[in-house]
């Protein structure tokens, strides 16, 4: 292979070359930079990337470390000291992080090089990356379609081979859904498994940082790096972190996997449904036992999610007041006007919509009817999963009811956009872990292949088992080897 082909590699493959000194971390970055310059003008995944700063890190990289010399792309809401952290919002334009998130320190401790700030829906609010105030990100499989969201820049970069691995965040599906729509692997850790210190908060009781990668093995490697207790995040769990690669390669004999009967709903694209059912058969042929399970409160998950997540967001985003950082309105005459105009000028439409909804459900007279009731139904949903996981070790479903949709198709109807989160929201409500990995393709009317994602959900802190099942499935299929066919701007 030539150096120009390097970006097509996954982390495990690149790591082997780096360790054998076939290629240096600096050469890797150079090859990646060239491909980004050739490809990203069509995709729009990167907001910025700083080759000089990364090269300085690469010169000191220790390739004997688990992620030595591997560039990792970072969603633009995780702080890396000295780099921008805008959450793709106008209100944080020009913001420079004064410190690094715990996950960044952990990645660096394992030798990785944070490289690039990835586009996203503003403050991670959205399912298509169309809510970015900065730029459009296109799906590499069909440039007229969305990459999913909110971690759409991270997902599209992997699909287009302009990143080796990336970090995203998942509050209601924002890692798993873009992974599904972009044909890659996205992992949402259990709540509390990964420190949120240094992550700009959207909905604090839901947010988790997790990896987006080309393969399940790569995902497990990144989780090995970022998982673990952090005294700077009081919600991080003080639980033993196993080696997530240890179970890879083991078969599925005796493992029970549940098929939630409530997930067999109308409105799922028939091609998605048949791909997922074929995957279920495949899991069975690998030795897993498939049983039907029930999650009786499934139908309420989206309502609960959008009440609680917007409530938390409205409180978290109160910190954007134009005083300590971020945009500040000019020529104001009162304090009220200072706040109201700063925020009106800084936030985009979806963020405003969610602040209004969240403020409303917390406001006097409506708190009990919406917020408190939603918290109670959240508990019932959590209990549904506890009961299901007494019978099975994993649940299987589609990640998204359909493949990637067209840019602009759902932007005028927020409710339709929210309803597409039907399979992902509940995992965040219950705090459990989950993965999305490729399980087939639909075809668009113009003959483009559109990836379909398989979701596997696991009990809280049982990440290792999910990686084992996902890896066994992945290795028995060729879906993860497919790459989109599009022409770079220049070779």
């Amino acid at each position: 292979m030539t150096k120009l082909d390097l970006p097509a590699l996954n982390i495990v493959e690149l790591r082997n070359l780096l360790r054998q000194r076939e290629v240096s971390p600096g050469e890797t970055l150079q090859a990646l930079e060239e491909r980004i310059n050739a490809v990203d003008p069509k995709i729009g995944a990167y907001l910025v990337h700083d080759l000089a700063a990364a090269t300085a890190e690469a010169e000191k990289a220790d390739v004997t470390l688990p992620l030595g010399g591997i560039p990792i792309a970072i969603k633009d809401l995780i702080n890396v000291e000295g780099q921008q952290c805008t959450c793709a919002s106008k209100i944080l334009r020009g913001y420079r992080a004064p410190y690094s998130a715990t996950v960044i320190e952990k990645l660096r401790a394992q030798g990785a090089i944070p490289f690039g700030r990835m586009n996203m829906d503003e403050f991670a609010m959205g399912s298509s990356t169309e809510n970015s105030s900065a730029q459009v990100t296109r799906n590499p499989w069909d440039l007229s379609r969305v990459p999913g969201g909110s971690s759409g820049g991270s997902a599209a970069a992997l699909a287009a081979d302009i990143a080796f691995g990336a970090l995203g965040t998942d509050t209601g599906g924002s890692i798993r859904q873009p992974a599904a729509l972009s044909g890659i692997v996205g992992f949402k850790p259990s709540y509390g498994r990964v420190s949120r210190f240094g992550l700009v908060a959207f909905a604090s009781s839901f947010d988790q940082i997790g990896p987006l990668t080309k393969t399940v093995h790569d995902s497990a490697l990144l989780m090995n790096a970022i998982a673990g207790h952090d005294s700077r995040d009081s919600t991080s769990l003080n639980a033993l972190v196993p080696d997530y690669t240890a179970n890879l390669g083991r078969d599925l004999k005796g493992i029970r996997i549940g098929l939630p009967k409530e997930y067999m709903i109308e409105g799922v694209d028939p091609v998605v449904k048949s791909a997922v059912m074929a995957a279920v058969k495949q899991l069975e042929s690998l030795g897993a036992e498939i049983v039907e399970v029930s999650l009786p409160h499934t139908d309420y998950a989206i309502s609960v999610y959008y009440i609680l997540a917007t409530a938390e967001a409205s409180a978290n985003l109160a910190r954007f007041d134009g005083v300590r950082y971020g945009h500040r309105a000019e020529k104001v005459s009162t304090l009220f006007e200072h706040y109201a105009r700063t925020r009106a000028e800084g936030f985009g439409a979806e963020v405003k919509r969610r602040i209004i909804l969240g403020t409303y459900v917390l406001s006097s007279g409506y708190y009990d009817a919406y917020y408190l009731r939603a918290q109670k139904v959240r508990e019932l949903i959590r209990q549904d999963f506890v009961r299901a996981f007494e019978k099975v070790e994993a649940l299987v479903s589609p990640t998204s009811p359909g493949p990637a949709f067209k840019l602009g198709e759902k932007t005028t109807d927020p409710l339709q956009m929210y309803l597409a989160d039907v399979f992902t929201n509940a995992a965040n409500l219950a705090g459990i872990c989950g993965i999305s990995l490729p399980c087939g393709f639909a075809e668009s009317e113009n003959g483009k292949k559109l990836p379909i994602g398989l979701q596997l959900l696991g009990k809280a802190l049982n990440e290792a088992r999910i990686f084992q099942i996902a890896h066994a499935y992945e290795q028995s299929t060729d879906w993860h080897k497919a790459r989109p066919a599009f022409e770079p701007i220049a070779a």
Partner: protein
Amino acid sequence: MASELDVAYVAQLARLRLTADETKLFQKQLGDVLKYAEKLKEVNVEGVEAAAHAVPMFNVFREDNARDWFTATEALSNAPRKANNLFIVTKVVE
């Protein structure tokens, strides 16, 4: 319930200036969302404890030790307006 949403009033609570068009649009869009969420009224939540978190969590304590953190200069590095090592705020008291 949905019809009670007054976007203009809530926008005041949220310290967010909306245009007349935004107010009208959000009134319709959020009205749809709240109408959809009315199905929560079907659920029997009697005796169910409200979950503030997905994982049962209780008070988390640590030793009250001083540690190094930002200098004033670092804390002010992103301030839109500052003077004499302080943030400038809009006048609160006349």
